[in-house]
């Protein structure tokens, strides 16, 4: 009655073997490494780059343990951090600006394990050290910008069709188009409706004025917000690339938030500077008909900005081009005057817009305005000499080479579609991270040993079997976490300890049941059978309730708490498997074959 078919033993054996293989990499530890990845999509990490890196390192008499090509980057592993840092310096000077050289950690596990995709657990920032940022995207700014653009679009549409209107004004997210009579309004309404499907229109008559109220449709609003976040994600990714981090995580969280995780980064000031640059770029026309003065408010339809020298300048509100149209920007020199310059490459739409604008405005001045933290500054205001087609633009102005580089970096990294603000920061130093690992590991170890000693003393043979099952549970849990590359955090380690402590419940339930059956005078074989059978329903019920809690934590928790929830849920799955199947298999192996079993060692 207590015999498993062969396939069940084989299944358990296979699970344990897989568990062992995928747990193994965690024992080899990690070594400092340097990771080289190309900055631009046009460049590839290939065998040629591998050779370059190898020779560069050899020339500097650095001996990497291994240099390999993985994905789109080259990784070189070193014995100590000293040679790692030296190697980074060597590679930065040798490879130039086209490549990012970042510090990283590489597992020391043998190649055959890596070939099986057996990797060590992915450690969270609280265990490996690094920075975590949560950024909030300012959605109302994105919508304001869209409405500002709408003002210009509607004006030019009405003008093109010769529809008489007396003004377009904006109040927050609502546009008011004023007409002289109802007929013009209905014509205007039809025109706007046909051209711009994103706007919701409504008539409103006020004191003899025929007004048209224009608002964004909710779905259009939604789309604008969504694309603002998407663009900010791309921008952040570019910026983080410039920062040289090995495995950054940049993800959307919720509707309007972005998580940025930079493992190993300690210089938070620089990271914040680069991330927090809420720069957006706009190209507008300079208003030359009025004189700029600080004494009076700027004339209607214009705004006043300072340029780099602090001189005031009046600029039209209408935007010709925004930063999102910029494909690439490189620092360089003007080939005539040899002044430092920034060369900009626009995308198709941007190139067309820019061509139209420059054709219409030859001889006039155009301002490139950089908005940082809500404040605009005119980077440069060149005179348009001729129509500029093809999307290739060169900006020269009063700037030195460093400024040219800075401006290019800002333009290249792309402007943000909407400003962002850091609303959460968590930085963990590497020493604390290492300490957290030791503490988490030690408390799990000590707890496990205590439980093991108690169980073996209290339930004798069955206690020992329970502990073997619990050890298998730990093995499978760690293997599963390594296999899924789920992030292990300190609360996650606490979760491992807690699930082990809770998993014991199943074995205690079973053992108590067997004792009870034996006390009632049932034969040992029947007692074992009944014990496992009857306890199963209870084990299932009690695990499901804990699983519900884990699921809720996963859904609503963030960061480290999510790590805890993942471990809790996985731990429940592995503990069901090990407490019921594995411990039963061992019991069956030991007692199942004995036909006349008179006594079992259960204390």
């Amino acid at each position, binding site marked *: 009655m207590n015999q498993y078919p062969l396939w069940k033993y084989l299944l358990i054996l296979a699970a344990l073997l897989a568990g062992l293989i995928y747990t193994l990499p965690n024992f080899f530890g990690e070594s400092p490494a340097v990771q080289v990845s190309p900055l631009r999509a046009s460049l590839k990490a290939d065998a040629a780059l591998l050779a370059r890196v190898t020779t560069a390192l050899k020339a500097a008499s650095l001996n990497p343990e291994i240099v390999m090509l993985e994905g789109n980057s080259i990784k070189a592993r070193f014995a100590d951090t000293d040679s790692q840092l030296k190697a980074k310096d060597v590679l930065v000077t040798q490879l130039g600006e086209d490549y990012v050289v970042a510090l990283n950690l590489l597992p020391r596990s043998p190649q055959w394990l890596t070939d099986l995709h057996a990797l060590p657990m992915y450690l969270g920032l609280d265990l490996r050290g690094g920075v975590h940022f949560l950024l909030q995207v300012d959605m109302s700014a994105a919508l304001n910008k869209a409405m500002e653009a709408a003002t210009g679009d509607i004006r030019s549409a009405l003008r093109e069709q010769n529809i008489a209107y007396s003004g377009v004004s904006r109040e927050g997210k609502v546009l008011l188009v004023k007409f002289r009579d109802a007929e013009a309004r209905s014509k205007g309404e039809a025109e706007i409706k046909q051209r711009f499907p994103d706007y919701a229109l409504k008539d409103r008559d006020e004191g003899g004025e025929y007004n048209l109220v224009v608002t964004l449709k909710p779905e259009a609003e939604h789309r604008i917000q969504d694309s603002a976040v998407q663009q900010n994600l791309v921008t952040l990714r570019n910026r983080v690339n410039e920062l040289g981090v090995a495995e950054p995580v940049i993800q959307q969280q919720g509707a309007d938030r972005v998580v940025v995780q930079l493992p190993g980064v300690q210089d938070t000031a620089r990271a914040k500077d680069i991330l927090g640059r809420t720069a957006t770029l706009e190209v507008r026309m300079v208003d030359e008909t009025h004189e700029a003065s600080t004494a009076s408010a700027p004339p209607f339809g214009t705004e006043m900005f300072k340029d780099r020298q602090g001189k005031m300048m009046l600029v039209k509100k209408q935007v010709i081009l925004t930063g999102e149209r910029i494909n690439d920007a490189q620092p360089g020199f003007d080939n005539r005057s040899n002044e430092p310059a920034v060369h900009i490459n626009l995308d198709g739409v941007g190139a067309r817009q820019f061509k139209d604008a420059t054709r219409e405005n030859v001889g006039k001045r155009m301002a490139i305005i950089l908005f940082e933290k809500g404040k605009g500054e005119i980077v440069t205001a060149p005179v348009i000499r001729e129509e500029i087609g093809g999307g290739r633009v060169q900006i020269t102005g009063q700037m030195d080479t460093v400024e040219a580089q800075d401006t290019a970096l800002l333009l290249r990294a792309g402007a943000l579609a909407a400003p962002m603000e850091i609303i959460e920061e968590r930085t963990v130093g590497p020493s604390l991270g290492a300490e957290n690992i030791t503490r988490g590991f030690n408390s799990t170890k000590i707890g496990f040993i205590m439980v093991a000693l108690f169980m073996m003393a209290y339930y004798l043979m069955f206690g020992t079997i329970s502990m073997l099952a619990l050890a298998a549970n730990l093995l499978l849990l760690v293997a599963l976490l390594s296999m899924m590359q789920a992030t292990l955090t300190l609360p996650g380690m606490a979760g491992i*300890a807690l699930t082990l402590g809770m998993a014991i419940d199943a074995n205690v339930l079973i053992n108590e049941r067997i004792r009870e059956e034996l006390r009632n005078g049932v034969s040992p074989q029947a007692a074992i059978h009944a014990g496992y059978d009857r306890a199963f329903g209870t084990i299932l019920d009690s695990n499901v309730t804990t699983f519900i809690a884990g699921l809720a934590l996963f859904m609503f928790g963030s960061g480290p*708490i999510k790590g805890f929830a993942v471990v809790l849920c996985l731990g429940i799955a592995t503990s069901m498997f090990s407490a019921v199947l594995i411990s039963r298999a061992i019991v069956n192996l030991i007692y199942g074959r004995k036909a006349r079993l008179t006594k079992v060692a259960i204390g």
Partner: protein
Amino acid sequence: MEFFRIKHDIPFMSYGRYTTAISLVTFLFAVFFLVTKGLNFGVDFTGGTVIEVHYAQSADLAKVRAQLAETGFPDAQVQNFGSSYDVLIQVPFKQNIAGAKLSEQVIDSLRKQDASVEKRRVEFVGSQVGKDLIDNGELALLLVSLGIVGYLWLRFEWKFGLSAIIANLHDVVIILGFFAFFQWEFSLSVLAAVLAVLGYSVNESVVVFDRIRENFRTMRKAGVAEIIDNAITRTMSRTIITHGCTQMMVGAMLFLGGETLHYFAMALTIGILFSIYSSVLVASPLLMMFGVSREDFIKPEKAEAEEVLP
């Protein structure tokens, strides 16, 4: 070895009035402290900045405070953290200071005073994040409660689900009461522990309820109180041993896990201790009160089939 060799069933149900009275009093105390003292919410919820720094020698807290006051943080809380070398600085959230830059200002200022200072950890949480976390915490609590009631309703009967969740929510309130009374910091990981306890301590009720259901089928002549007494007595050994083992694990975390895990383990410890009490001595009397009867399991044929699982 066997700790609990109990010959006769202990008449728990006849003590029902006392046991529920005791937990009612504890509960009221917890509510009282929650109302009068309130929870000492950590930076996760209130917003603000926490900075942990490490000195090469014992830190002089007075000097650190003076230095910070000079830099413009007179309201910064400075205290030792774990050892005399480690210092924890808490700066409350302020509207006018760009919160994200604050940590650098503090570290720079401390570095001027003593170059050996090492930044160990920085946590800055904006006020809007804290509000979201509280909202999410409440939602999670609600979801867990509903989920458990729903599951127990499905597996047993609504009376079981209701009495289990009342017993266990009362545990949650008592844990919170402890945190309010001692003014321990209530952080995100403590919240996680509270929710885990909710899921975990329901186990306790489930085990007893399972026995009660089984007893309704096997002890045909016994009364309801007798059936419940027998179920509790028969599962008592398992209850104590299981919780003892879990507590060994949690205890290791409490003493060896460092400051970060300390209160997490503390919440679990209180939760485990009270869940033993409440799921046995509160949930079962409640079950009696709701009038559980053999008729609730009148369709045993179907349920029986379910029991014979591989």
